[in-house]
């Protein structure tokens, strides 16, 4: 599914003392099979934006096109849209409610009105995609660790077979191990299923390792929308809006300012290492 937003505006609490423009003129193209990072600090509008993409919030003005069809048109099937654009909320483990893992994952496909075999097939597939085998199926979600619970919740969305998977800070509150496991699994999933993944985060370091495109949000607007190395070139501007480039960017930038002949477009440790070694051997 291809998503496109056109002049999207969202004002909440219109007409009250709390009126606030949460989104300002958002124009984005979300193609198929792309790994995208959305970055912004709390209140930048990133969470509001993703809730628009699957129709949970209706824009004040502007349009969203899903495969060319305006989702705000009368008669547009929002339910299908929600299954095609899977949204994993922050701390998704808080939405688990069934007595066992397997039934919880079945909830989504069941709501799509599929037959029992299909539902169970999808649940099994989704659980294996997040790395949970059948020994977990009949466990209560509350017996699991924080990272495992979160993977169950993500499986609950995957079982709906979304074309676009949006994850709102999927690593919040997890320790480094849980974080790496989840991000690795998402990356694998993206590559294997060739779906589009939008990863919302406030950690540049996390995102830079995985995504091919970064959308930086600030005060409800899109500040940058480019490949990571190009976005991090603006590391000084990023700081002024309360964000920061990965530490390695600062290392190469500092070295350059000290007169080194070095490539500063690095975004990962590996790239930084190569750049520094190359510069040292000059």
């Amino acid at each position, binding site marked *: 599914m291809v998503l496109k937003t056109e002049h999207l505006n969202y004002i*909440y*609490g219109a007409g*009250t003392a*709390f009126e606030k423009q949460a989104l300002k003129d958002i124009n984005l193209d979300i193609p198929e099979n792309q790994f995208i990072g959305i970055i912004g600090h709390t209140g930048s509008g990133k969470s509001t934006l993703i*809730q628009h993409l*699957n129709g*949970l919030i209706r824009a004040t003005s502007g349009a969203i096109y899903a495969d060319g069809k305006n989702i705000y048109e009368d008669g547009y099937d929002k*339910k299908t849209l*929600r*299954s095609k654009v*899977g*949204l*994993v*909320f922050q701390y*998704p483990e*808080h*939405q*688990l*409610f069934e007595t066992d893992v397997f039934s919880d994952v079945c*909830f*989504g496909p*069941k*709501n*799509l009105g599929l037959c029992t075999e299909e539902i169970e097939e999808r649940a099994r597939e989704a659980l294996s995609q997040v790395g949970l085998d059948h020994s977990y199926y009949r466990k209560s979600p509350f017996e699991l660790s924080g990272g495992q619970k979160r993977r169950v919740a993500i499986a*609950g*969305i995957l079982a*709906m077979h979304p074309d676009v998977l949006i994850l709102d800070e999927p690593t919040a509150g997890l320790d480094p191990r849980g974080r790496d496991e989840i991000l690795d699994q998402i990356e694998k999933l993206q590559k294997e299923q060739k779906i589009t993944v939008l990863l919302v985060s406030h950690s540049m370091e996390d995102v830079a390792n995985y995504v091919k495109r970064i959308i930086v949000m600030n005060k409800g607007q899109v500040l940058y929308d480019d490949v990571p190395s190009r976005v991090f070139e603006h590391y000084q501007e990023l700081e002024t809006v309360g964000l920061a480039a990965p530490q390695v960017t600062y290392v190469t930038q500092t070295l350059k300012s000290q007169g080194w002949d070095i490539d500063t477009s690095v975004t990962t440790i590996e790239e930084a290492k190569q750049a520094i070694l190359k510069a040292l051997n000059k």
Partner: protein
Amino acid sequence: MLRDITLGQYYPASSVLHRLDPRVKLVATLAFIVSLFAFGSVSSYFVATIALAVVIKLSRVPFRFITKGLKAIFILMLITVIFNLFLTPGTPVLEVWKFTITMEGIRTAAFMAIRLIYLIMGSSIMTLTTTPNDLTDGMEKGLGFLKVFHVPVHEIAMMMSIALRFIPILMDETDKIMKAQMARGADFESGNLIQKAKNMVPLLVPLFISAFRRANDLAMAMEARGYHGGEGRTKMHPLEYKKTDKTAYVILLMYLLLMFLTSRYVKIETWLGF
């Protein structure tokens, strides 16, 4: 945003009313409501209107905030007025189809409407000028005498203030879980009553779990900060009657007296020929 709704609708301002002891405000509101029902005459309502106007002026709360609560009881008021208007026997004034409007009907309907409106406005002023915490404090101290009958007054007040703190958080959480389940295709709107109740399970279970988790955390945090019941606890806002509070009680007494006297001796109704 749900969080912007302040429960108990406190309106921050600096006025005599805001500074008044919550016990005074509680007692006065109660007395005002009782006076509306006990002394029903045109002249005493005239007194009540003046008293209300003065209090509103003193509160420095914009008038539209005070009338906000009226929307909620509009239907109730309409029903009361219609019933009283058409179903009170007495001297007919007007006939509409099968119904007769009587002089007495107009009178009771008008009185009922005034009572309800003043009741809401009066209690709105109290909640608008008193923080929920002060209100619970006022109740805790004001009802302190119940301790003799083994009523856990402190605990009830503590529960109330914790509820006040957590209701907005849980409302936010409800909103979030609802959206999360909708993203999984849940439907909270269609279906019959039983279907709808069933559909609430994916919302209610996580909500309860979350409430328990929060309660557990909070209990631990309270313990860590040395909470061990009301015994040996001091208050950062101890309630002590000040001069203004005493004056307020005197004014309240005078108001009640005036209400009593006017309802008894000043019969505007008879002058007007009711």
